[in-house]
C-alpha cells in the first residue's frame, strides 16, 4: 500500500514536475523553502490545482493513486473533483466557516461524508484535539491555535483516506505552535491513514515526519525515510544551523537520582544509547531524539575527564564541504545509527579525518522531540 503521485504544473515562471512514491501510512513531509512548489503539489493532490495537459499520446500525464484508489489518471481520462476525493485538508490559515459555530463546522463535513464513511466517533476526535470547551463558539471567538485544532478535527471527521496539511502552524506564533504540536504528535500516533504535511520548519519535520521529501524549484531533491534522508550529505538541504539527524529509540531506563532517561537505539551492537533530561516519559515508550550537527564534536579517544555525557563509538562514512568554507560536515556510522557532525576544516585536517576511520562522537546536546 502506498501513494503514487505524478504531478506536472507549468505556470509562467514556475514549473513543478514531481513523481512521488510515499508510504501508505504515517507522516510524509514535503519540505522546502517557499517557492519550491510544496503547497502547489499538495493542492494538486487535493484536486484544487489545475494540472498540465498531456503533451502527446505517449505522455503518461498526471497520475494519483492513494492506496489503490486512482484519483487522477490523465492517460485514461480519470479525474475525481475535490469533493469526490475522500481526503481531509487543513489549510495554512484559519479556514473555518465564519457563519457556522464550531459544532456546525465540524458537522459540515461529517454530515456530507456520512454516506460513504463508517460512523465517525465525534467525541473521540473532539477529545483528541481538546476542543470540547469551544464547541458552541463562533470561529471569530477562538484563538489561532484553537481554530487550527478545530480545522484538523473537521478534516478528520470526514473519515479521510488521506490527510493533507499545508503548513498548519505557519500562521501561528511560537507559543501557539507549542500548543498544537503535542496534538499533532498524538494524531501521528493515533492515525491509521497517511498524512502529507507541508512545512518549511525543520523542527516540525523532526517531530512529525516519518518520510521526508525535499523539494527545490519544483523538483524532488530527495525522498526517503526521515533519518536516512537527513543524514545525506550530498543534499543541499539548506538547514543551516538546523542540520542534524532525528533518531527513533525507546526509553530503557530512568535515573531518578540524576533526573536522566536512557534512550536506547537498535543498532549493530547492544547498549547503543544516549542520556537525555528525564521529561517524565514512561519506560518502554518510543521517542524521537534530535541531534544537531553543531552539537557533535569528534575525538580520537574517549575522555572520562569531560563534562560530556554522551559519547558513541563511530566510523567516518563520508566527509563533505559545508556551506561555509571553514566548516565540514562528517557523516558517521555509530553502530548502524547515522549521525552528522559539523567540525571546522582545520580540525578535520588535524584529526586527519578519512572514511573508515574509527573515533568517538561526543554529543553535547540531545533534544527529545516526541
Amino acid at each position, binding site marked *: 500500500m502506498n501513494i503514487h503521485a505524478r504531478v506536472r504544473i507549468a505556470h509562467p515562471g514556475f514549473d513543478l514536475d514531481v513523481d512521488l512514491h510515499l508510504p501508505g501510512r504515517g507522516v510524509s513531509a514535503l519540505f522546502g523553502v517557499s517557492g519550491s512548489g510544496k503547497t502547489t503539489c499538495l493542492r494538486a493532490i487535493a484536486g484544487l490545482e489545475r494540472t498540465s495537459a498531456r503533451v502527446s499520446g505517449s505522455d503518461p500525464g498526471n497520475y494519483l493513486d492513494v492506496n489503490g484508489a486512482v484519483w487522477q489518471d490523465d492517460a485514461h481520462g480519470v479525474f475525481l473533483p*475535490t*469533493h469526490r476525493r475522500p481526503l481531509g485538508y487543513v489549510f495554512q490559515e484559519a*479556514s473555518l*466557516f465564519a457563519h457556522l459555530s464550531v459544532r456546525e463546522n465540524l458537522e*459540515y463535513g461529517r454530515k456530507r461524508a456520512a454516506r460513504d464513511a463508517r460512523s465517525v466517533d465525534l467525541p473521540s476526535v473532539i477529545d483528541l484535539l481538546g476542543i470540547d470547551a469551544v464547541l458552541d463558539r463562533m470561529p471569530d471567538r477562538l484563538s489561532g491555535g484553537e481554530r487550527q485544532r478545530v480545522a484538523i478535527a*473537521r*478534516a478528520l471527521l470526514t473519515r479521510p483516506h488521506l490527510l493533507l496539511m499545508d503548513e498548519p502552524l505557519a500562521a501561528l506564533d511560537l507559543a501557539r505552535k507549542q500548543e498544537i504540536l503535542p496534538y499533532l504528535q498524538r494524531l501521528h500516533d493515533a492515525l491509521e491513514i497517511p498524512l502529507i504535511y507541508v512545512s518549511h520548519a525543520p523542527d516540525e519535520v523532526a517531530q512529525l515526519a516519518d518520510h521526508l521529501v525535499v523539494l527545490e524549484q519544483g523538483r524532488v531533491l530527495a525522498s526517503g525515510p526521515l533519518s536516512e534522508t537527513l543524514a545525506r550529505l550530498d543534499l543541499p538541504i539548506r538547514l543551516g544551523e538546523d542540520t542534524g539527524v532525528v533518531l527513533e529509540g525507546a526509553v530503557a531506563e530512568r535515573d531518578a537520582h540524576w533526573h536522566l532517561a536512557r534512550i536506547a537505539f537498535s543498532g549493530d551492537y547492544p547498549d547503543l544509547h544516549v542520556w537525555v533530561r528525564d521529561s517524565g516519559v514512561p519506560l518502554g515508550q518510543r521517542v524521537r531524539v534530535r541531534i544537531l550537527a553543531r552539537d557533535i564534536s569528534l575525538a580520537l579517544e574517549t575522555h572520562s575527564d569531560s563534562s560530556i555525557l554522551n559519547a558513541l563509538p563511530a566510523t567516518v562514512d563520508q566527509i563533505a564541504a559545508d556551506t561555509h568554507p571553514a566548516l565540514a560536515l562528517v557523516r558517521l556510522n555509530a553502530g548502524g545509527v547515522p549521525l552528522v557532525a559539523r567540525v571546522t576544516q582545520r580540525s578535520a585536517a588535524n584529526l586527519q579525518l578519512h572514511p573508515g576511520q574509527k573515533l568517538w562522537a561526543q554529543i553535547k546536546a540531545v533534544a527529545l522531540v516526541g
Partner: protein
Amino acid sequence: MDSLFTAADLSAIWLTVKLATVVTMILLLLGTPIAWWLARTRSAWKGPVGALVALPIVLPPTVLGFYLLVTLGPNGPIGQLTQALGLGVLPFTFAGLVVGSVIYSLPFVVQPLQNAFEAIGERPLEVAATLRASPLDAFFSVVLPLAKPGFLTATILGFAHTVGEFGVVLMIGGNIPEKTRVVSVQIYDHVEALEYTQAHWLSAGMVLFAFLVLLALYSLNPGRRRA
C-alpha cells in the same frame, strides 16, 4: 387618507410597489448568476459584460427607454418574437415596464452581489470541496450565507431604484392609469396640472421613503463603512 391622496394616487402607489417587488425578485434571480460569473470568471468577456451591465448607471434613462421601445415595439426584433409567441407587444403594458425596470436596475443588484462574492474569495469554496460539498451545495451552504449583507444591499438598492425611476417608465410605459402610471409619473402629472398640494404629498412620501431606505442600508450593513 382621502384628503391626502386621490384614488389615482393610491393606485399609482400600489402599482409602484407591485412593480418594484416583481422587478426585485426577478433581479435577484437574474443578477445572482451574472454577479457570480463576473466575480469568478477569468474570461476575456468579463470586461465587456461588466460594462454592458453597468451601462444604465451612466446612460440617460431616455436613451435606454428609447432603444427598449424600438426593440420591444411591433417592428423591433424582440417585439416580433413576442408577437410570434402570442404575447403581443410589451411597450405600454405592465410587463413592458417590468422588462425595462429590470434592465435599468440591473447594475444596482449585480454590483453589490459581485462585490460580496469577490470578498468571499476562492478559499471557502475550496474548503467546502475538501469537506465533500459539490459546487452547487457549496454555493447554497457557504456562499449564500456569507454573502447575506450583499444580498440585503442588492435587494434594497434594486427595490428603491425601481421605485425612483421615471425616464424609462415614461418612454416605454407611457402614462396609463392602473397599468403603467407609477408614483414618479403621477407626480409629474400633478405638477403639469398645477396640483401642487397633491404633488407635495407624493413627493414628500418619496423623500421619506428614500431616507428610510438609505438609513436601513447604513444601519443594517455597517461593514460597508469600514470597506
